[in-house]
């Protein structure tokens, strides 16, 4: 049975539901995603494209979880909880899926960690370690992608991009510039600036650098950084998102 309605900070009435994650009984608001609820209860679910403060994209599929009675796994970030859900976050099948996703990401473009400016501060590298991805079983594609260094402060290296679209979302939703977007399909898919023009020629970019800070890998970086020197800070994001939401 759904619980009594509770009033949120925006005055909206939301019901409380009860569910189970990995055998733990949990109460949550019915508008929350499985990932929100898991994080609030200190249950770790690996994720990559998700970032608190940005809209949900659901592209990377690393946060897949199993729900009893569902025929296939669902992404925890884009599935809202409901009454009586029984959720598993780390079955052998889910671990195998996550590992395979990471192998495909590493095989698709150049993710050589040792010479990357983000070495040691990279979410993709951390996820490989967390999910036990210690070697890639599929063939590497070895296809070169462009590097755009035309911006005076920042660089985009498409070889390191995992197409999480955090840059696209932060630029549109937080900065309000919408310089970034996505073009092409499949292996041709790339993030672009303006109408696929060099970043340095962009008339919409404010050079705020939010895209660089939220990028999980070494795809968007500050110029002048050497291997391992690019540390990112996205702590500003939930605050900015909240301030924008309150206006």
């Amino acid at each position, binding site marked *: 049975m759904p619980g009594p309605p509770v009033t949120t900070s925006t005055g909206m009435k939301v019901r409380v539901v009860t569910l189970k994650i990995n055998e733990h009984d949990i109460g949550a608001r019915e508008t929350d995603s499985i990932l929100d609820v898991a994080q609030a209860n200190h249950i770790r679910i690996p994720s990559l494209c998700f970032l608190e403060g940005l809209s949900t994209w659901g592209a990377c599929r690393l946060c897949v979880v199993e729900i009893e009675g569902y025929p296939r796994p669902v992404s925890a970030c884009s599935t809202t909880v409901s009454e009586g859900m029984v959720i598993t976050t780390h079955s052998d099948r889910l671990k195998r899926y996550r590992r395979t996703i990471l192998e495909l990401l*590493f095989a698709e473009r*150049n*993710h*050589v*960690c*040792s*010479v*990357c400016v983000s*070495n*040691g501060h*990279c979410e993709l*590298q951390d996820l*490989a*370690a967390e999910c*036990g991805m*210690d*070697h*890639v*079983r599929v*063939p*590497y594609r*070895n*296809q*070169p992608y462009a590097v755009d260094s035309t911006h005076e402060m920042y660089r985009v290296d498409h070889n390191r991009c995992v197409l999480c679209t955090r840059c696209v979302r932060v630029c549109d939703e937080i900065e309000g510039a919408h310089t970034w977007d996505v073009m092409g399909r499949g292996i041709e898919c790339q993030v672009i600036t303006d109408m696929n023009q060099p970043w340095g020629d962009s008339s919409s970019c404010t050079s705020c650098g939010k895209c660089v800070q939220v990028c999980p890998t070494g795809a968007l970086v500050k110029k002048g950084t050497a291997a391992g020197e690019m540390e990112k800070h996205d702590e500003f994001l939930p605050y900015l998102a909240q301030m924008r939401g309150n206006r």
Partner: protein
Amino acid sequence: MSDSAKITLATAWLDGCSGCHMSFLDLDQRLIELAEKVDIVYSPIVDTKELPRDVDVGILEGAVSTEENLQVARRFRERCKFLISLGDCAVSGNVPSMRNTFDLDDVFDRAFVETVQTQPGRPTESLPTLLRTVVPIHHVVNVDLFVQGCPPSADTIWYVLTELIAGRTPDPTQLTRFGA
């Protein structure tokens, strides 16, 4: 002389920088302890010229970039009961594999013509044939254990070897990672 009670160990470096072997030497005083339990029967750091027929543990550093690398990898697989890929080049191709996005002719010119001031020109003998694509070891032979890192730390190598000596299968993923 080989002591039959000891575990036999063979190592080689393929297309790598030898950094993983340097990390092995960074075991420092632990090398003495290791020598009491392990007999290094073939390695760039010992004198033997031939890989013995039957080896307990083989360790390969570096990626497979040449026909010779390919032969060594296959020979190690044939003759070693337990084969370890040591370091990112062996495990993922790492830096050597970054030539894969270039045409092989351009790679030769870059190495032997464009960046050479004295007698630039491609060598015509003594060089093993380059493979078109650099691949990790496990893409050409089966590998039993992957030890990531560029290079893996001496502590990681020590953990792997002592676990094997104790008869256990090590899991180095908690100690090292790509790029570590």
